[in-house]
């Protein structure tokens, strides 16, 4: 039974990767996800300067959804690079870098720095829904802006032969247009999707729960939205996809691959099923393979489109 996936030339033992923003603050926390069964990890998004992020509460978990507005806290790309180097000393699993910035130039500068570290792939986070006051609407809502950033980052990555995946927003009504624009600008893949905008109001205090008021919804509530986004991008663009959004079980991960995902991002599932969720999902996928006489997971990518 083959769970290995070769994605943009990088070999993953299994398609389940830690999604950016959950747990991935330090080398040790990412290594722990590998030990607990993940095929690869994505570091929490890094920026040029350190950021403390939003004031708590920044996260809340419910039965069917998770809401966060962490506000892109990170120690800055120079400190982040140290964690990436340390991770690569601790294990050989692939690591996906992740960057964001306030301008096209800043994305470029940050990419230049992170490309000096041993990342296998670089994800461009243009889709965080929780920093609107500071940065304006995400670049992921506008094909021109998304393309400009992708192109700028590619200038840095191509010198190091590091493939790039641009992370898309489910809030964009024209997600396939954005994906196409990114592809034309040189994106090797897209990550679909980031969280969708949402809000929870505490009825006792009669005020939004998150200090940022608005947040990003992940978990089961996001899954059908993510499946549709992956499906549409696969149909429209014929490009590799890291399918992310609401995956908490092996069956969810299989669904994402059938829609067209080559890798499957898992993040807030940790809230419901603990950090062991990576191995649990991979085991459930193996069970599916046995039950359905599937020899290699790679064979089911996009398969729902042909039936």
């Amino acid at each position: 039974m083959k769970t290995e996936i070769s994605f943009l030339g990088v070999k993953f033992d299994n398609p389940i990767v830690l999604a950016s923003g959950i747990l991935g603050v330090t080398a040790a926390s990412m290594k722990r996800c590998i030990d607990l069964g993940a095929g690869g990890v994505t570091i929490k998004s890094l920026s040029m300067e350190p950021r403390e992020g939003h004031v708590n509460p920044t996260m809340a978990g419910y039965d069917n959804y998770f809401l966060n507005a962490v506000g892109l806290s990170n120690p800055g790309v120079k400190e982040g690079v140290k964690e990436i180097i340390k991770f690569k000393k601790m294990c050989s699993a692939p690591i996906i870098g992740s960057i964001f910035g306030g301008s096209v130039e800043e994305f470029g500068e940050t990419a230049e720095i992170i490309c000096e570290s041993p990342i296998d792939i670089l994800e461009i986070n243009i889709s965080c829904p929780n920093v609107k006051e500071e940065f304006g609407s995400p670049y992921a809502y506008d094909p021109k802006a998304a393309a400009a950033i992708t192109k700028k980052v590619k200038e840095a990555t191509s010198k190091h032969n590091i493939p790039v995946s641009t992370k898309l927003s489910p809030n964009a009504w024209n997600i396939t247009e954005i994906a196409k624009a990114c592809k034309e600008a040189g994106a090797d893949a897209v990550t679909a999707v980031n969280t969708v905008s949402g809000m929870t109001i505490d009825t006792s205090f009669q005020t939004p729960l998150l200090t940022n008021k608005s947040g990003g919804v992940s978990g089961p509530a996001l899954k059908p939205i993510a499946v549709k986004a992956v499906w549409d991008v696969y149909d429209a663009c014929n490009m590799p996809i890291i399918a992310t959004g609401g995956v908490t079980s092996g069956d969810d991960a299989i669904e994402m691959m059938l829609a067209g995902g080559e890798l499957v991002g898992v993040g807030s599932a940790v809230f419901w099923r603990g950090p062991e969720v990576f191995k649990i999902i991979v085991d459930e996928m193996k069970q599916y393979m046995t039950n359905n006489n599937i020899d290699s997971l790679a064979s089911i990518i996009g398969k729902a489109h042909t039936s």
Partner: protein
Amino acid sequence: MKPTIVKILNIEEEAENVLTFTLDYPALNSRPGQFVMLWLPGVDMKPFSIASDDGKELKLSIFKVKKFTTALFEAKIGDKVGVTGPFGNPYSWKQGAHVLAVGGGYGSAPLAYLINEAKKDDCTFDLFIGARRKNLLLYSNKFPEEFTHIATDDGSEGHTGYVTEILEEKIKKLSSKDKKRAVVYVCGPELMEVAAAKVSQKYNIPSQISVERFMKCGFGVCGQCCIDDTGEPMCIQGPVLSGEHALSLPEFGKYHRTKAGAVEKY
């Protein structure tokens, strides 16, 4: 993980700049060493160790530090706060153990809860409290004098020097029978915790240390409190670790991470 909104039933002064808040929280089902997150809408949400939970009321002894605690100190009886938790790995003990509880600064809060619960299991105890000066001592009058041992940096009360020094003196005086049933429980500034863990190790007494790291969520998702080199989140795997495990971590007593996630040395 929806916050439970509860009323403040009582507020009393405990020490200089320390207030104990009694909250109307039935059936929290916490254990000593665990913590809750306290939410003041529009201000912040912060972790606090539990000072007492009798199944009806939750008590938190809180030291005034910055913005959040300043806002909390302005709260009045009858005001509401949000609570999530209880979170984290608690202290544990065996029936009839001898509890050597070592609190530095404001670390006595969870230790008082531990002592009161362990007493129900026929445990005996000694409480060691250290502070910079007399007025900052937390819970110095909560338990009988014969079991309360005090150290201050300036000698304004008790032994002049470190709390770990009076811990070591006491351990030396323990009968071999008492030594066998002794466990050291520690909560306080990290360098004091390292010293206490080492003293325990020196006399072959097991220890349990409360290791604090910057926390956002409290339930193992944000990754902010993961410790090197195991990557264990301290909000779940901690805060209470065995002294041996804590001493084996390259981060313990050496550095921690800031709110942004950057390494900061002690």
